[in-house]
């Protein structure tokens, strides 16, 4: 693999890891506060799986950069300033109500299904293997969140209103998941990652089916978040400060 591809691909994987990490972090905030006990358990399960996925992506990035895969993930999570995180804006937003969190999870899970299916044929074998494994867990995530989106969409007028309000906010943000960057296009040319526009088309068509069946209207309009992943809301700064608070008490220490 060419040197510039190694670095590009490592950045791509780090961004995937950041999406999983930040979404898992948000998801973990629901533990002890979910609408019913069974969902305390189920939503925590999603977050646990995602923390595992984040680790997997970070370790793959480490291998490409000749960093120690045992140490690199923690370094990424606990030593980078917020400005260096490369997650999409959607996942750093505060949890809002249950409709918001569940719908966000669904939109993300749907994007994972589509992206992971495509990544399974990456020319980088480590990536293809990791994607295939993660996809197995993601199948269940999508089963769970799509069942919930349907029930909340169709349940009561109140639940439908809350879901629509959430969708109006989240859909334009979710489009950032498939925003194109020059380096991603190059990686796609080389066969390491899928073409983002193809993913976007598949994702839009997939979620349209579920959302309209749930009596939810897909908002019109352009993506609301900037294409690059380097711009964040003030929420991320607060999230990262909290997340790194204990680790930063003393660097390089065994906890």
């Amino acid at each position, binding site marked *: 693999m060419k040197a510039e591809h190694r670095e590009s691909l490592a950045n791509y994987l780090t961004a995937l890891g950041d999406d999983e990490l930040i979404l898992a972090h948000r998801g973990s905030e629901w533990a002890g506060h979910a609408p*019913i*006990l*069974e969902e305390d*358990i*189920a939503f925590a*399960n999603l977050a*646990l*799986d995602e923390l*595992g996925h984040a680790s997997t992506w970070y370790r793959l990035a480490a291998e490409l950069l000749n960093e120690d895969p045992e140490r690199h993930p923690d370094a990424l999570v606990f030593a980078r300033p917020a400005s260096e995180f490369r997650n999409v804006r959607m996942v750093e937003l505060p949890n809002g109500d249950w409709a918001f969190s569940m719908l966000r999870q669904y939109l993300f899970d749907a994007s994972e299904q589509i992206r992971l299916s495509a990544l399974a044929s990456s020319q980088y074998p480590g990536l293809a293997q990791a994607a295939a494994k993660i996809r*197995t*867990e993601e*199948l*269940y995530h999508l*089963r*769970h969140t799509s*069942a919930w989106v349907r*029930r909340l969409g169709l349940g009561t007028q109140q639940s439908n209103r809350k879901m629509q309000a959430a969708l109006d906010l989240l859909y334009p943000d979710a489009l950032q998941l498939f925003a194109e960057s020059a380096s991603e296009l190059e990686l796609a040319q080389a066969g390491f990652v899928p073409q983002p526009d193809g993913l976007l088309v598949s994702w839009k068509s997939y979620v349209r089916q579920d959302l309209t069946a749930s009596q939810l209207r897909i908002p019109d309009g352009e993506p609301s978040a900037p294409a690059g992943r380097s711009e964040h809301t003030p929420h991320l700064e607060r999230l990262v400060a909290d997340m790194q608070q204990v680790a930063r008490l003393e660097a390089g220490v065994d906890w």
Partner: protein
Amino acid sequence: MRDTQWPRFQVFHQEHPDRPHTNAGAVHAPDAELALQNARDVFVRRPDCVSLWVVPADQILSLTAEEIEHTDLPPAPAGNGDSQRYLVFIKRTQVGSHEHVGAVAAASGPAALGEAVRRFGTADALVWWVVSESLIERTEAAEVGSLFGPAKDKPYRDQAFYHTTTLMRQIRGRPKQEP
């Protein structure tokens, strides 16, 4: 509308294809699909599992060995009337759980119980459960990977993942430090 914790579903899990389904506990869920999903999240955080069944708890008919002593069970049916299949679960040991033993055909729940006691009742049966097979929701074979595979990748739920014994031994073995 009254705010509820949703209906209860009894959960049966099968750890290995060669072993019967046994009762693991119950979950609350609004419907069968979420009951199956909740059962997976509540009862399959650790290996092993190859199949889950859920059934509305209030549809299970139950008899204990003690109740049999003072209950008149319906007599065996005369002919082949309208009958359905009822699955039978029996608790056989004091510390055990209700285990799937087979099925009977019967025209009603109480008749199924009677049939179950006649067919499967042995000296050591402690509790009988019957439930109409049509009410059971099951996981499918094709789903085993995504439903039950992830539980195997979570070693941190196993106490062996933490090396406290080794750490304590190392500390004990050290020469005493000055405070």
